[in-house]
């Protein structure tokens, strides 16, 4: 409702302009357009994710509410970082949720002890998660392949168990940590007794939203979302730079042939460790942002299923591709939050137009796949992607693009012209 947020919502066509050949922030052609594409997606997400008018039957498929949009970008960051390790070096970590959790705990302590401003909290999250990943990586990277995965998994489960039990004074144990009005924030003024502390960015509260009503559509522009989105764009930009840099090439070389790398005078260990720490810091950033949005942490954030989820996101979207992890994260979070809310009465509503017996039949068939059964749908989709599209959703997109291109070429009268057009596109 404040002026700042309404501005954030009003920025629309501006960022599209600087995508020129000369390069956007040092990026070349395709990478620059990719960055602009992702920037547009995130900026316009409140519109794109809310295609159905409120009150309509389809409204439950709308994902344009702040809570979910924040999750899209935050888990996007998590997956982008994971992909720098897994996609480039091929080292499959099964314990990245530990860094997310450690980042969250560090972030909330910064809010408890220093200030409610999110910037110090996020910085602290990234640094602490980076240090923790340095220790875990230094030990785990002594092994590769499945042994590396097991070591990281062990570390994550250890962290989870510790946070749940022994470290209760720091982590709050089962109840987790919340902000309290009596926390000793040394940089902030005291809060009145009984008030709920809210995270802010120089006074702008994360929960602040500006609502735009357009006909029967309702679009919500949320301050927290745009701050998280800005972080994701920065994270995405950095990932592109890493992918294209000599450092990124060395990481791909590690995945391809460590033997040759060793006998080319290059030591793979520091490269993999650097990649591990960078991806740990990305996880810390995601953890810090989660805390900034909901100001609470629990140990379940570090449970192994959370580590598994980021692996799913990366593989589902396309490991080793730039945009893949972002797509995968969005896809899984959408499933988790939308498909899981479909209940029996919703289904009955859908099939109401059918004769009674048939409707019951369809409801019975579909019911296990929605609501609490959304994991089943996700599992089947994941299997389908791994079997038919080992390159993930990105490969699916590429296949569709190839088919479309071939169709267009086939329908063109002169083959020469089509070829020329293809050249121009490349």
């Amino acid at each position, binding site marked *: 409702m404040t002026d700042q947020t309404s501005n954030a919502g009003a920025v629309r066509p501006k960022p599209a302009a600087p995508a020129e050949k000369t390069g956007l922030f*040092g990026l*070349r052609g395709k990478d620059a357009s990719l960055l602009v594409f992702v920037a547009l997606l995130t900026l316009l997400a409140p519109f794109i994710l809310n295609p159905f008018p409120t009150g309509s039957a389809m409204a439950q498929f709308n994902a344009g509410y702040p809570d979910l949009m924040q999750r899209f970008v935050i888990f996007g960051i998590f997956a982008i970082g994971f992909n720098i390790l897994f996609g480039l070096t091929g080292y499959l970590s099964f314990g990245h949720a530990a860094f997310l959790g450690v980042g969250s705990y560090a972030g909330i302590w910064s809010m408890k002890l220093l200030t409610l401003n999110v910037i110090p909290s996020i910085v602290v999250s990234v640094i602490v998660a980076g240090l923790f990943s340095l220790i875990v990586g230094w030990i785990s990277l002594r092994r590769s392949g499945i042994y590396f995965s097991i070591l990281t998994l062990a570390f994550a489960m250890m962290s989870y168990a510790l946070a749940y039990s022994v470290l209760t004074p720091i982590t709050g144990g089962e109840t987790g940590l919340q902000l309290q009005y009596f926390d000793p924030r040394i940089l902030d003024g005291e809060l009145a007794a009984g008030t709920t502390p809210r995270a802010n960015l120089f006074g702008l509260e994360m929960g602040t939203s500006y609502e735009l009503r357009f006909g029967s559509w309702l679009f919500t522009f949320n301050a927290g979302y745009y701050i998280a989105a800005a972080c994701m764009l920065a994270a995405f930009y950095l990932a592109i*730079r*890493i992918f*294209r*840099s*000599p*450092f*990124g*090439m*060395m990481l*791909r*070389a590690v*995945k*391809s*042939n460590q*033997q*040759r*790398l*060793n*006998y*080319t*005078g*290059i*030591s793979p260990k*520091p*490269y993999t460790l*650097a990649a591990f720490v960078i991806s740990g810091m990305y996880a810390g950033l995601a953890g810090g942002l989660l805390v900034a949005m909901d100001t609470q942490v629990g140990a379940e954030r570090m449970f192994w299923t959370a580590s598994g989820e980021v692996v799913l996101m990366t593989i589902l979207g396309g490991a080793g591709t730039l945009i893949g992890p972002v797509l995968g994260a969005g896809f899984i979070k959408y499933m988790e939050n939308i498909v899981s809310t479909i209940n029996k009465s919703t289904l009955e509503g859908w099939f109401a137009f059918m004769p009674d017996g048939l409707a019951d039949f369809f409801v019975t068939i579909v019911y296990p796949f929605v609501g609490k059964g959304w994991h089943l749908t996700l599992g089947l989709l994941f299997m389908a992607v791994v079997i038919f599209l080992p390159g993930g959703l990105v490969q699916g997109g590429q296949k569709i693009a190839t088919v479309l291109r071939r169709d267009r070429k086939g329908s063109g009268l002169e083959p020469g012209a089509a070829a020329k057009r293809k050249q121009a596109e490349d």
Partner: protein
Amino acid sequence: MGILEVKNVGKRFGGLKALSDVNLSVKEGSVHAIIGPNGAGKSTLLNCLVGKLIPDTGSVSFEGQSVLGRKPHEINQMGISRVFQTPEIFGDLTVMENMMIPCLAKRDGAFSISAYGAMMDDREIVERAEHMLEDMRMIDKRHMHAASMSRGDKRRLEIAMCLAQEPRLLLLDEPTAGMARADTNNTIDLLKEIKSTRPITICIIEHDMHVVFSLAERITVLAQGTPLVEDTPDRIKGHPKVREAYLGESSGH
């Protein structure tokens, strides 16, 4: 004093004596071949030179410096490059990228985290890699996936990658094993060309006598983990001990 000095090297694997009392001196600028029947310890010796194995006894020094206890990448940075029996290249990368990695290793050393700037904008490295590819007549394959090339081309690329580091000593482990005659001859020509255009020492382990006798200036024959003889190719050809080791013939035959 040679560029590579191996003194009294011994290596055991449990009860198996793989190498014992190996002495070898490779003269700078020469092509030195190590031959011997299967199980003679040729590969074990080579692995001791590049740091993959550490000998139990003896010393190995390159240009007067000991290589013992150093890791493979450190030994490589000293100036020793190795070509493997089956070509070891970066299969997932393009030929050009394969070529750029040794160029980077030469310039930036064992580790450098220069995430700033795109790889393909690094003029110096791109030019050096392109120059090397032109030299090896592979420039037309620069955009190819390295894994999709023929075996002969993979071998050529691997040798090119080794040369891009400008090593003083090039070690080749049966470079023509499993190759067709034509590819073998191409490899021989390539090595001859390299030898004639560069100040490099080549040490080659080989099974194929045709390759050995067309390249080597000096030959060491290894049998059962010890050097049998070391001499020029002409003398090795007729040497009774060599015939015995290879063919199991008695020297009087």
